[in-house]
C-alpha cells in the first residue's frame, strides 16, 4: 500500500510523516506522530473530540484527509501550553472542575481557544453556540462555560496590562 510523505508544521515544529491518502488527519496525528491528545469520539464530525486548528481555524481532524495537511500549520491540544506554563483556559478548566472524565477536554480547549482568539469577550450564548460542535456527556456544559468565561476575563485583564 502506497503512502504519501507529508510535510507540515505541528504545534510550531516542522514535522513530516507518511500516511495512506485515505488516512484521516486525526489518525495521522495519533498513530504516526504519537500525539494522542486529540481523540476520536465519532469519526463523522459530530462530536468535536478531534478538534484541531488548521492555519488557526477550528476543524474536525477526523474529516480532513492526511495529505491535506501539506504545508499547513496544525495546532493540537499538546501545543496550547508553553511547557509547564498552562494557557489560562487550561488553568480555569482545572480550577473550575470543567472536566470529569476528560475525554472531551482536548477538543473543548482547542475550540475554546479558537473562540476566544476570534471573540475575546463572548456572551454566554456566544460561548454555547461557539462550542456547540463539542459534545460533553459528563459535565452538562455548565462548568465548561464558566471556565471559558473566567479565562476570557483573565485574558482580557492580561492584555489590558499590556502583557
Amino acid at each position: 500500500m502506497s503512502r504519501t510523505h507529508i510535510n507540515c508544521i505541528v504545534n510550531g515544529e516542522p514535522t513530516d510523516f507518511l500516511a495512506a491518502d485515505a488516512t484521516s488527519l486525526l489518525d495521522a496525528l495519533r498513530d504516526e506522530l504519537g500525539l494522542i491528545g486529540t481523540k476520536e469520539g465519532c469519526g463523522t464530525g459530530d462530536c468535536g473530540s478531534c478538534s484541531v486548528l488548521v492555519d488557526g481555524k477550528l476543524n474536525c481532524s477526523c474529516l480532513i484527509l492526511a495529505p491535506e495537511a501539506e504545508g499547513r500549520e496544525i495546532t493540537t491540544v499538546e501545543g496550547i501550553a508553553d511547557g509547564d506554563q498552562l494557557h489560562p483556559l487550561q488553568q480555569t478548566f482545572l480550577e473550575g472542575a470543567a472536566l470529569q472524565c476528560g475525554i472531551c477536554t482536548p477538543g473543548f480547549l482547542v475550540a475554546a481557544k479558537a473562540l476566544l482568539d476570534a471573540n475575546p469577550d463572548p456572551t454566554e450564548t456566544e460561548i454555547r453556540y461557539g462550542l456547540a460542535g463539542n459534545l460533553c456527556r459528563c459535565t452538562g456544559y455548565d462548568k465548561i462555560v464558566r471556565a471559558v468565561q473566567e479565562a476570557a476575563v483573565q485574558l482580557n485583564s492580561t492584555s489590558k496590562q499590556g502583557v
Partner: protein
Amino acid sequence: MTATENPTNYKWVGTRPIRHDGFDKVVGKARFGADLNLPGQLHGAFVRSPHAHARIVSIDTSAAEAMPGVKAVVTGDDFPALDPTHPNYDTAVNCMARGEAFYHGHAVAAVAATTKAEAKAAAAAVEVEYEVLPAVLSIADSMADGAPLANPNNHTKFAPPGDPSNLATITNLDRGDVDQAMADADVVVEMGFDCAHVHQGYIEPHACVVDYGDGKANVWCSSQGHFRVRSMTADVLGVDNSKVKVVPAEIGGGFGGKTTIYLEPIAAKLSEKSGKPVKITMTREEVLRGSGPAPSAELRIKIGATKDGELTAIDGWMAYGVGAFSDMAGLIGAMSVASYKFPNLRMETYTALTNTPKSAAYRAPSAPHAAWAIESVVDEVATELGMDPIDLRLKNAAVEGDLTAMGMPHPRVGLVECLEALKASDHYQSEPAEGSSRGMAVGFWFNIGEESSATVNLNEDGTANVITGSPDIGGSRASMALMAAETLGIDVYSITPIVADTESVGFTDVTEGSRATFATGKAVVEACEDLIEQLKARAATIMGVDVGEVAWVDGAAVSPGHGGGEGGDPLTLAQITAQAKRTGGPLTATASLNAAGAGPSFAVHCADLKVDEETGEIEIVRYTAVQDAGTAIHPSYVEGQMQGGSVQGIGWALNEEYIYNADGAMENASFLDYRIPVASDLPLIETIIVEVPNPAHPYGVRGVGETGIVPPMATIGNAVKAATGVRMTSLPMSPPKVLKRLNER
C-alpha cells in the same frame, strides 16, 4: 452553590483542590483506552450480524484469511463452551455469538490485521450464512401469548425451573390493601407511559489493547472496573484470573455502560493466535449498534390520594425491554420506588427480552423510567387537589423508618431537606420568566457498598501514595486524596492518589452504584487510621513514652510527656517517616472491606421552560438540581455529578431515542441522529448540595453519581403540562410528538 449544612469543620474535606490527574488531562498526556500503542500491534475488526435474530449456519473465513495483512481470525468456536447457567455465559455469548445471532450488530467473528483498513476489509470478506429466525422487537411483542423466543437460553429468574421464556424477571410486591385504598380515595389518577431505549452516550468508544504472552493476557483498557474485566475475560477465555492482568486506562465516560466487556477476550484470542498485541477500538456506530443501551419501558401507574393530600395508594405495572439477554431491570425498577410512604402499594414488574442489543446499566438503572411515570402522576394529583407540588411531596416524603416498595426501612435520608431547600431556593421563590412555566420532580437511588481495597504508603519524606482499584470516572481520586488528607492531617497536595492494576492492589468492585467515594473512601480512611496507629507507635518509640500517651492531632503525634506545653512538642508525620527505618521499617497500610451502610441519595429538580406551540420545541430557561450528598468531599465534583446527571436526563426527556426499523436495525446509529444535548441547548444548571450525613461513613458520604438522572424527565414533563395543559406520556418529548399532542388539545 454552597452546602446548606456543614456538620463538622473539616480542614480538607469540602475544599476544591485541583485534581491530581488534571494536568495530564488538559495537556493531552492522559492515556485513555485507545491511547496505547504497542510495537508490532495488529488492529482488530468485527463481523456483525445483519439480522435481528438468526441461526448461524456457517462461517467461512478462508477469503478473509487470505487477504493482505490478516494475521488471525476468530469465531465463537475459538472460545470454550460455557454452561448456560454460568454467571458469565451471557457475557461470553454477547462478546461473540455461538451459533445464534441475537440482534442486529451481534458480533459473530473478528479479524486482526496489520492496519485498521486491512482489518475492516477482511471483516467484510468473512462469509456468514444465516438462517433468519423470527425476531421479537418490542416489549408488547415479547410479552404476547405465543411470542417467539428472543433467546432460547433465558429462563425466568427466582422462579421454579421451567420452560425458556421471554421474561427474565417477574416481581410482585404487595402491602396494605390497594384496592380498598383506591376505592376510599378522593382522587385517583391512572396513566400509561413509555420510554424508548437510550444510550449512555459516553464520548469515548470502547477500546483495548491486549498483549498475549506466556499463557497470559495483558489487557490495557478503560472500564469502570478492571477486576470485573479480569474475571469476565478469564471466564470467556476459560482460564484462571491469574492469567489475565488488566491495567486501567483513564476512562472517557461510562455511566454504567462500561461495567461489562465487549472486546477484551476477543482481542486476547486474536493476540494468542497471531502472536502479536491486538488493539481493538469500536467506532461510534458500533458503540450504538453493539453495546448496551438502557432498557426501554412501558409503565402504568395509578395513585390514590385523600383530599388533604395524603398519597394513600400506588398500583404500578412496569415492563422493561432489555435486549436479548437476561437482566434484572424490572426488579430494580421495583426497588427504585421509595420516595413516598404509600401505606398501600402494589407493584407488578417484568423484565422482557427482545432481539435488540444487550442492555447495560445506565446511571440509576430502571429508576429514571419509574420516576418518569410516578412523578408525572403525582404531579397530576397535585393539580387535581390544588396543592403546590412541593407541599404535596413534603406531606408524603419518605423519612427514616418508612418502607421502600421492597419493604426495606429507610435509614436516615434527606428527601425532606431537599424539598425544603428547593422551596427556599431563589429559583422557586422567583416567578418563572415571561412566557415560561415551571415543573419539579423527585428522584431516589439506593446506592451500593460492595468490596474495596486500599493501600496507603508513606514515603520517606512524609508524602503519601493512596492506591485504590476504583477507576476514576468523575474526580474520585481527588476525593480519596481529600479523605486521606483529612484523616492523616497532611496537605492534600502531598498525597498522590492512583488507580492501580489488578496485580498491584487488592480486589475492588466496579465503580458503579455510586460506591467509589463511599466504599473505597471507607477503605482509604481505614488504611489511614491503621497508619495513624503505626505512626503513634513509632512516635512513642522516638519520644520514649508509652504509646497509650500518644495522640494524633493535626498530622502530628503529641504526648504530654514529650517536651513542654500542653500537648508537648508534636512530632510531625514527616519527622516520623524520616525515622521509619530506625523505628521498624517502611510505613504502609492496607484495608479491605465489604462496605455496609451505603446511604441513599434523594434529589429534587426544578425546571422553567417555554414551549413553542407552533413547532413543539421546548426551550429550558432555568434549571436547578438539589441533592443530598451526605457530605460533599469535593463540592465541585459533587456539583459536576448533579449537573451531568441532570443533562443526561434532559437529553432523555427531549430528544434521545433508539429508532429501529421493521427489521430491528437501529436507524440513527451516529451522534448526528442520536441526539445528545449540545451546549447551546441548555442554561447553566444551578446546584444546591444538601448535606444530611450518612452515619455509616466516617465522613458522612452518600453516593451522588446516579440520582441526578432520575428526576429530569418528569421535571420537564410537569413543566410542559404547566405550560400547555398537555400531559406528555411518551419519551422522548421530541418536537413532532409535542406538536401532535398540542394539535389534539
